[in-house]
């Protein structure tokens, strides 16, 4: 085989790789579009009028997750599954956003942390790497941290909307999350950085609870009977 032939041969590999990446990029763009739509649906919970509509908004989001599953199913066909990490960078960002949206929907529905298995199911993917397109621990955790930040905003806006019990529940939830994260030996830089942000969310929510406490608004909430 001459040098020229060898380079043509290698060029074959490279072109194939580029084609795959091009295909992946297109599907990922569709995922991003859907993710943005889900976000727009869920953003309305921050509006004063938004709290009553939580169930309907969550239902709407759940519908959009069908589209997500279809698109991801399409994505899976674009590359050999054992090379997941070869192309990981392409969908890592949107996958974390989708984890955030999924965990946020479930939180709004049940006020509990949805486990990785459940998120994977919502996205139509696996948990165990060997089984196929899967949800990485890091990506799951990153998505959870984005949600934590969204919850700190929700705590603030709950008060604006006159719901004084929700911040306390959020506070407990976030504290538990924080304890969980403290167990981890994070070395991975971007996740570590995101986790550092969690402290600010904890702090922000704590401040909201404090503001309610000193005004006796937490007790008021208790006595007036929680809406949940």
């Amino acid at each position, binding site marked *: 085989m001459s040098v020229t032939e060898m380079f043509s041969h290698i060029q074959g590999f490279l072109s194939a790789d580029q084609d795959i990446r091009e295909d992946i990029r297109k599907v990922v763009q569709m995922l991003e579009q859907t993710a943005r739509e889900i976000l727009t649906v869920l953003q309305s919970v921050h509006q004063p009028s938004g709290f009553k509509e939580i169930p309907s908004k969550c239902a709407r989001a759940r519908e959009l997750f069908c589209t997500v599953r279809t698109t991801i199913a399409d994505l899976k066909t674009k590359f050999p599954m054992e090379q997941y990490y070869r192309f990981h960078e392409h969908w890592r960002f949107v996958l974390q956003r989708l984890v955030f949206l999924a965990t946020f929907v479930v939180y709004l529905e049940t006020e509990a942390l949805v486990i990785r298995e459940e998120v994977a199911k919502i996205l139509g993917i696996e948990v165990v790497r060997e089984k196929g397109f899967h949800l990485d621990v890091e990506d799951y955790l990153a998505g959870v941290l984005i949600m934590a930040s969204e919850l700190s905003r929700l705590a603030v806006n709950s008060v604006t909307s006159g719901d004084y019990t929700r911040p*306390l529940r959020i506070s*407990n939830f976030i*504290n*538990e999350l*924080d*304890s969980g994260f*403290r*167990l*981890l*030996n*994070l*070395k991975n830089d971007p996740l570590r950085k995101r986790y*550092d942000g969690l*402290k*600010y969310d*904890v*702090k922000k*929510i*704590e*401040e909201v*609870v*404090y*503001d309610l*406490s*000193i005004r006796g608004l*937490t007790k008021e909430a208790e006595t007036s009977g929680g809406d949940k």
Partner: protein
Amino acid sequence: AQDREASAQSSSPVIAAFKVFQQELDTKHDKHERLVKISRDVTIESKRTIFLLHRVTSVPNAEDILNEAELKLDAVRQKIGQIAEELRGEDIFQFHRAFTGGIQEYVEAASFLHYIRHRSLISLEEINARLVFMKSEKEDSEGPADTLQPGGQVLTFQVSPSDYLLGVADLTGELMRMCISSVGNGDIDTPFQLSQFLRQIHDGFSYIGNTGPYEVSKKLHVLRQSLGKVEDACYALRVRGSEIPKHMLADVFSSRTTHMEPEEGVV
């Protein structure tokens, strides 16, 4: 022709000299590699200790964590003992670049533990006092070290002032994280204590200014940011606290804890 080379290699004093150089260079390089690897281990374990220590703000049994951290650091010190072993009889500055990263991270971890225990800055001397190692006899015991243990030999490792400073500079980042967590946990004393302590370290570093090593000046900017975050946190506590009389403040925070307890079983 083959014997030409062979004879040249054996007879030539130049070649003979270069064979000696080769050995000398390879020995040095191998030692450097070994030190790099130990240093990586020191870094990783120190980082894990720091992570562990951050849990101290959220759990009630702080002492357990401190003890666990102490154990982890003992293991790190054993590694540093290996470094000291490698450096025995060497000019340590010759290999400084190989292990400085690990040592700085150790200083960060050790000073963090010390601050949590004693609310003070560990001194360079205190750091170094823990880096004395006993070595069971091997080869010749060079000179009569005042041995506590017969047949043993004392080996020390001296952290350089620069590495100490660089470790302490990084410590401030961890203190900032701790401050923010404390606020989140309703601890109102720690943030004010931390802000005072951080300010002292900050003033210390600005006193040193650019007379220290170059890397220190580079870290000053991050230090200043950390201080800013801590000052902002104290400010927030004060501003919010201003809305009710001071004596009620503690109650508010402690009530939070009691308030939470019943729910915990549920979750």
